[in-house]
């Protein structure tokens, strides 16, 4: 998490990004750091996706991807997650307008949609498990649960951060620029969504 700027008790509160004026590039340190972090995350998911792609075909006869996937259900939960990106954008716009009320509303809706997605994942995992696909069943199952589990943890961490942010806005305890903080959370959230588009395509849609 970025080391955010000090809450400035100085009079000129103009909602602008104070940091940008002082850096060599004009970009704020926090934003640059978030982009670097996301760049690093690409390699993390890259490694996990490669592992899955290597092992997707290694399973017993009747417990492979084609047997266990429920594409309509996962499509619906994917749609929910993508919609949360839309609400995140609305939160960022509200924050840019310094509209605290709507920022909180849209952040909460984003968290709710994210939670819905995670709930769907829990349901999906439970169903697969009941059908006999445990974590240790096959190479396919180990790598599938690890990849999607990692993504689920990212969404969950995102939800916790969103809710914390709503709380901090309510109590007026966001250090630094509110608009930028919301925007940085947004970057993370969109990244997690984009990764899901990749996972959904590679894991679910391409036939094994």
């Amino acid at each position, binding site marked *: *998490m*970025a*080391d*955010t*700027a*000090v*809450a*400035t*008790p*100085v*009079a000129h509160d103009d909602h602008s990004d*104070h*940091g*940008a*004026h*002082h*850096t*060599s*590039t004009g*970009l*704020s*340190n*926090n934003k*640059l*750091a978030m982009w*670097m*972090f996301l*760049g*690093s*995350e*690409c*390699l*993390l998911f*890259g*490694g*996990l996706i490669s*592992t899955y792609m*290597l*092992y997707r075909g*290694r399973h017993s006869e009747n417990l492979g991807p084609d047997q266990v996937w429920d594409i309509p259900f996962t499509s619906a939960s994917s749609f929910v997650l993508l919609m949360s990106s839309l609400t995140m954008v609305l939160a960022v716009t509200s924050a840019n307008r310094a509209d605290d009320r709507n920022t909180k509303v849209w952040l909460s809706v984003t968290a709710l949609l994210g939670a819905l997605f995670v709930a769907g994942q829990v349901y999906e995992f439970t169903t697969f498990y009941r059908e006999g696909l445990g*974590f*240790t069943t*096959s*190479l396919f199952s*180990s*790598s599938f649960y*690890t990849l999607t589990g990692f993504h689920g943890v990212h969404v969950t961490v995102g939800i916790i951060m969103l809710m*914390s942010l709503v709380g*901090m806005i309510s109590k*007026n*305890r966001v*250090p*630094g620029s509110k608009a930028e903080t919301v925007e940085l959370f947004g970057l993370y959230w969109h990244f997690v969504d984009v990764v899901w588009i990749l996972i959904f395509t590679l894991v679910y849609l391409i036939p094994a």
Partner: protein
Amino acid sequence: MAIIERPSAPALDSPSVPAVATPSTSYGVFRRPVETTGWKSWLFTIDHKKLGIMYGVVAMAFFIIGGIEALLIRAQLAGPNGTVLSADKYNQMFTMHATTMVFLFVMPMAAAFANYMVPLQIGARDVAFPRINAFGFWAFLFGGLFLNTSWILGGAADGGWFMYAPNSSVAFSPTNGVDFWALGLQITGIASLTGAINLIVTVINMRAPGMSLMKVPIFTWMVMVVQFLLLFAMPVITVALFLLMFQRSFDATFFSVEAGADPLLWQHLFWIFGHPEVYIIVLPAFGIVSEVLPVFSKKPLFGYPLVVFSGAAIGFVGWGVWAHHMFASGLGPISVAVFSVATMAIAIPTGVKIVNWTLTMWNGKIRFATPMLYAVGVIVQFTIGGLSGVTHSVAPSDTQQTDTYYIVAHFHYVIFGGAVLGLFAGLYYWWPKMFGKMLNERLGKWNFWLTIIGMNLTFGPMHIVGLQGQPRRMYVWTENRAGEGFFNIGFWNLIASIGSLVLSLGVLLFLINIYVSHRKGTQPAPLDPWDARSLEWMTASPPKEHNFDAIPTVGHLDEFFHRKYEDRGTEDHHDYHQVATAEDLLAEQEANAEKHIHLPSPSYWPILLAFALPIMAYGVIYNILLIAAGALLALVSLYGWGMEPHTATDDDYDPPTTGTDLEVASHG
């Protein structure tokens, strides 16, 4: 970042403080640890210079531990049928020797210099995220300690530093050693990752006015290349370590060959990290050498842009050569050919550096002070290691050399001869800057020559025994297979073991040198003892807490040199005359000192957050409840961190002050 320094006297014209946005006290009954002296000032510091020193001290301690492990290995191999170590202990010893030296000595020692010098070299007052910097140090320390507790908790990891799976599965390595290894390296990996983000942002965003990227000192450049390598390599090893952890602790099947697993998965993941890691190890030392050579040759670095671009080129091509570690694994002729050619190609930018260094010295007024000796040592020793490296790039030849002592000889010449000698050059060069005392030159020269002779005696014979076929990682060799005459491996193993003693004597002299140089009554170091060229020397030694009284505006590469010397020559013929001394420049800076210098305050949270990591790691091995406890501590620390204002409030001081100057420089 907000850079706020406690003002000495309340400023009368300060703006009034509205009661919004910041809480009046930081943590209820707890005061913020605002001490500037004593143990608390180190434990909770977020000053990049203190953290740099702590990185250095801890790295040096791990260097000694790793060195003792190496001495035990050499004692075991000194004669036939060695009995110093059992086969099992021997496996743990070489695994931990390599792990300690790579992850707990060379990398953090480079981090020590990066932390200390980068903000000074670019004319900044701290790194971009000082608290994250502190967190990185503590995560590294706790990760290293966690890793080493395995010695007393059932035995250390024993699968070699690259821990090939499935050989590292429970069936072949039943103690918790490998679990400690996988978890410990994840913790130090988090430290590296946060450090990488921090330093990249620092170099990109916090340069002094006028310092374009091509005016950035070469050490800082090489550090930045390394941080990009870390940024992209660390997540890959993290994936591998996670898979290994799941395999061992939660019965996943990633490396279970009987379930159809691919034994090359681990090798690919490890070496995609592992080869960039090689450059992560050596590039900071290259940066140091590129700083030292010009200073002691009284010439600018020859072809600075080429040195920068070849460093960056190494950073890029370094991603395309990993499979040369796997030539013996049966990748197929096309992969082998591609990686073979790529490996030969990466020798080019490295060669460019060597040529530039040599031409920097060419026609220079060379002073062979200790830092210079070490820097020249790097050129010679690293070139030897580089040449044996090129022989590995030829796949058929490599197939013969794989898993023999020839490989061990090669990587010790590049890591010890490149990285470690380079780091020692840095220690001698920057010591007066960091501590205000010169290291003793006489002892330094003894230190250097014993180290050089020791390393060649230790690692040189390994070429011979390796080509004779002595395998790596064998815990004994026997007389009846030792060979005859010149090639008798018994003789050369004994020489190598004697060499390791000479080498340790060299290192011991360094420690004695520190003691001798800091005895009571030794003179403080001159402000500019080496007639240096870059900005870190344009401030007090050791630097003040805020580094510079006034941030310099930069007009040149080697800004400090150009402020001291004026060019009275023509366009083709430079004729430099000294117009100012370091003392003059410092006095000028002090006269123009900025009134409102802002530094962030120390914090409890970085060390607490870092402490949560080993608790969770012990939890993975022993008890799931510990994971919950660690996660709780982490959560509390994160919230504390997130809501903590950058600067201590008046209530945190004893006695509390009022009417503080609250003008805030808030950037990030």
